[in-house]
């Protein structure tokens, strides 16, 4: 059974069809990419998966359970974490506090535990800190934990976001354009990191990306959508050779250049 199964997913805004009858499957422990020209509806797919948008029709099964009418926090609790295309860090809080947010759904202390600082609460706090530090270590910025998030350089802010998502201890990680705004060196480290997330942590990865070099290097399988419709799927080679992909992609790119 696939870890994630999208069946005939459709999302409409008024008359506009952002996602149109999309079906795809993601197997456990794989790395999959979703690509397509700008405005093809990629982020909309993620937003449906994580409960931020309500699909007009279709179904999404995560570990065999439907995600329809499920609130975002329940979905995260169920083991799916995401990052955002435009960084969405808690800017006024420290890097450490940012990453600690991921542990919220794995812990339970409430008002009285906090006020009386019970034994259980203290142990839990220690565990939250340990996990957060470990995640920061994993993404390679253990020394930045006391910075205010907004004071970090862009590349490091991205890493904080990955660490934060990892701290939720997901089974499936959705990365929305993780390489956007990164330089060459940072991209190389990202490729390495994605592989390590899958190999060391056994987390399945589903990513949206514009950087074709990166996508080609790491994904085992690629889905291509355009105007919300899936136009191709398959290995890197298969997709590269698919005339529809070339047409949709390069055609669009030319228009962009013209603007």
């Amino acid at each position, binding site marked *: 059974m696939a870890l994630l199964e999208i069946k005939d997913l459709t999302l409409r805004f008024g008359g506009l069809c952002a996602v149109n009858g999309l079906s795809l499957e993601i197997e456990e422990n794989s790395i999959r990419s979703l690509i397509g020209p700008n405005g093809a509806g990629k982020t909309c797919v993620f937003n449906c998966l*994580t*409960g*931020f948008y309500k699909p007009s029709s279709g179904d999404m099964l995560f570990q065999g359970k439907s995600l329809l009418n499920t*609130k*975002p*926090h329940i979905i*995260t*609790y169920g083991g799916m*974490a*995401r990052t*955002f295309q435009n960084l*969405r*860090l*808690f*800017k*006024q*809080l*420290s890097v450490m*506090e940012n990453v*600690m*947010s*991921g542990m*919220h*759904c*794995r*812990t339970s*202390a*409430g*008002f009285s*535990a*906090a*006020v009386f*600082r019970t034994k259980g*609460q203290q142990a*839990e*706090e220690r565990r*939250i800190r340990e996990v957060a530090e470990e995640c920061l270590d994993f993404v390679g910025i253990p020394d930045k934990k*006391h*910075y*205010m998030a907004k*004071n970090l350089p862009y590349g490091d802010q991205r890493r904080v976001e990955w660490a*934060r998502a990892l701290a*939720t201890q997901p089974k499936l990680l959705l990365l929305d354009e993780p390489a956007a705004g990164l330089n060459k060196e940072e991209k190389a480290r990202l490729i390495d990191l994605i592989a390590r997330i899958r190999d060391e942590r056994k987390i399945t990865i589903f990513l949206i990306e514009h950087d074709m070099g990166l996508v080609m290097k790491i994904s085992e399988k690629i889905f291509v959508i355009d105007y919300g419709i899936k136009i191709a799927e398959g290995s890197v080679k298969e997709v590269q050779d698919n005339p529809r992909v070339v047409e949709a992609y390069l055609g669009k790119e030319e228009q962009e250049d013209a603007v």
Partner: protein
Amino acid sequence: MEQIKQKEKNLNPFETAVEKLYELFDNTVLRYSVLALMVTFLVYLPLSSSLFTQEIMTNMFFYVVVCLGLNIMIGFAGLLHLGYAAFFAVGAYVTGIMSATYGINFWLTLPFSMVAAIIAGLAIAAPTLKLRGDYLAIVTLGFGEIIRYTVRNVGITGGAIGLIGIERPVFFGIVLDKISHFYYMFFILSIIAIFISYRLHDSRLGRAWQYIREDEDAAAAMGINVVSTRLYAFIIGSCFGALAGSFFAAKMTAISPDSFMFIHSVMILLAVVLGGMGKIPGVVLGAIIVTLFPEVSRDIGQYRLIIFALVLLVLMLYRPQGLWPERQFISTKK
């Protein structure tokens, strides 16, 4: 560390001084000795000061409690509450009615006051908290007015005249009827409020509020139930207000609808914003300024509210983070 040093060069002299001070107070021994000195002074104060000073100080402690209560909602969780006075009206009236009309012991009225605050909080917050924050602002504004209107028009609350003859609380055989008693009572209450605020701030729950305040969607994506976490903040804040109201009723022995006008909600809000939303020492500072300011400037009486409004406006435009200075770098020790 080097980067920090680098950045420090870009700070203006004031910010550098703030950083230096913060560094100084990272020293635990120094911090606790300063605190101990302050507490000793405040404990000793009623023994050597006039009744007038004690009255003002009591009022100040009362403000510290309600401001910290509002700070939980607005400073921690980012919920704009414009009818906070209504919540201390709820507490004051529950205690007032139970005590004056039914002769129930003051301490026994406290749980009821909290339950009433929770019910009122749920009734107005549950429908609004899942919507945009602005709705909460206007609903709480309306709620403040409705509560005042209701106590004015219902028999049990004594109508426009209000309630008189609320019994003095008895504490281990001592009837609390002197101003110095209330001084100590509100002093202890404000210490408890400060303590709870700090504990909450550095807890899982307190962090969740701050995540939601910073970015609601990102918080939800991190697995935080935005609606129920906000509701939690709202209810805890309401309980703070209601308890303060109960003690207020016990101190005054008489309450009327005019004690809970919109302007009180605004004063509390002003104190929180002035000191710096979410910053506990800032909020305490704001409470002190707002209580002392009218005392030192009685002449401006009728212009007071206009000045408050102008202060609020100028603050928002030029220093939205409040008076309490912010640290540029977060402590490297913790």
